[in-house]
């Protein structure tokens, strides 16, 4: 299984996570942090980057050690590795900005149980070379960040009238508080998933329409 992938270009490995197998929108993984910290773009971005860092680092290490880790204890090893990097990121973030750390709260530490990371470690990094593992992790991490920003942008724009903290609609704008509240998180993510499902359905329909014309 490793051999077949080797000759392939690395680009599809990278883009896969961004769009086609986007961890949030398509594979519906890592929903908890997605919903919890996406009430503003800056929080989304920080959370996305923190996850990206953990993802890349742990994928790299798992891939490096893939031949020495015994099968029976691999999950335990992965979790230790991930927890280590999460702790590192946690302290790093505290050193960079306490405000952001406070806004993200426990969800930084909860990256440990984000299924994306363990999932990539188990499904990809443990079977692929370091370069490919890092590429894949970066793709997935960026895809996750992208999804978070999608959510954060809508929620901040409607919920606060601003984007990245800059006022967009002027002082007369009446913010939709619900967008910052928990229900808003559910609604916006749900709406994004509906949009994706609609796209998928439409492209499936177009594809179906094209097929017979080819045959004819």
């Amino acid at each position: 299984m490793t051999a077949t992938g080797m000759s392939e270009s690395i680009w599809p490995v990278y883009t896969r996570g961004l769009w086609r197998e986007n961890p949030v929108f398509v594979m519906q993984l890592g929903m908890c942090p997605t919903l919890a910290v996406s009430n503003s773009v800056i929080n989304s971005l920080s959370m996305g980057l923190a996850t990206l860092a953990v993802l890349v680092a742990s994928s790299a290490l798992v891939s490096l050690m893939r031949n020495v880790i015994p099968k029976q204890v691999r999950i335990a090893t992965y979790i230790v590795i991930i927890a280590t990097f999460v702790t590192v990121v946690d302290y790093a973030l505290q050193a960079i900005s306490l405000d952001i750390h406070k806004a993200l709260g426990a969800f930084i530490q909860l990256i440990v149980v984000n299924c994306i990371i363990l999932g990539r470690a188990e499904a990809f990094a443990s079977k692929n070379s370091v370069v490919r593992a890092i590429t894949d992790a970066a793709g997935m991490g960026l895809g996750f960040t992208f999804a978070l920003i999608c959510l954060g942008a809508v929620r901040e724009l409607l919920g606060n009238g601003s984007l990245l903290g800059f006022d967009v609609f002027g002082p007369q704008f009446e913010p939709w508080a619900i967008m910052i509240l928990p229900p808003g998180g559910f609604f916006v993510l749900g709406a994004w998933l509906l949009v994706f499902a609609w796209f998928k359905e439409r492209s499936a329909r177009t594809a179906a329409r094209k097929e017979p014309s080819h045959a004819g």
Partner: protein
Amino acid sequence: MTAHGSILELQVSPHLHTKVNVSSIMLHVVYSIVPVCLFGVYQFGWSALALIVTTTLSCLLTERVVCWAAGKPSTLGDCSALITGLLLALTLPPGLPLWMGAVGGVVSIALGKALFGGIGFNLFNPALVGRAFLQAAFPVAITTWTPAGAPQRFTSFVPSTFAWPFSRPASVDAWIAAAGVDGFTGATPLSLQKFSHIGTDIGDLFLGTTAGSIGETSALLILVCGIFLIWQGLMDWRIPTAVLGTAFITSLAFYVLNPGIYPSPAFMMFSGGLMLGAIFMATDMVGSPVTPLGVWIYGAVIGLVTVVIRLKGGLPDGVMYAILLGNALTPLIDQWTQPRIFGQRKKQHV
């Protein structure tokens, strides 16, 4: 003998059918809501009328657009969107900006109904989904009240009514001051009771000359309309009975324990949205259980949660949340209260 050569129509029994159908049910509900709307307009003036019209149009338009987008025939004829629009308006404060009302209408139909597959498939009362959305989205505007019977209500609109879409509504303080209503503090009887421990005359509550949402003020009128529906056999009398009964008993228990702090059961029954919710909202057929026992449990849950939120919670009124919770519990209640069938000896455990 020509008839004997004619085509025989094959149909399955039964060959008789009751005259009641979905459209006639819905139409009667509309008839019973209209007086409540008219009274609301009488009490709160043109602004209330504008809001009722806006939410209704918004609901109808959304329903039409949804049908068009799904490529289905129009379902406006079943009147359910009309009911949703009217009911939504009845739960809103009269001075709410029209654009917020329109947002509420869109949310009610799109999120509360169309998403689940349209009429008959909505899990929650659509009007309450819209109302709860508005409550969470615009907490200030939706708790800005105007007094009932303000003298200028038919000569001017409440200033907040015509706020530009997405913009902050204008202050209503000057308008209220111009009304010259003594001691009006912009609070409903329930919030006066909860936050300031000021009671309101039960007679006023019963007749509906107090501040509040457009349609919730007159307990008497709502009762009359509800009795009309029950008499027509178009409403399940057990649900309002269970809701009001439980609310009465629970508030009586609180009142007996500590009459100094807790309001009287009569106040409970006639204030806020309890009457409107019990009669028009909780009885929404789609979101309520169908089993005989389930209906009572459902009503009791709503009554209990309402009183608990009112007396112990942070909000002055909790009817809306109680009914949404009741709706959420309905499938489970239905499953757990399957009736004992004829001739079945003991309840089988599934």
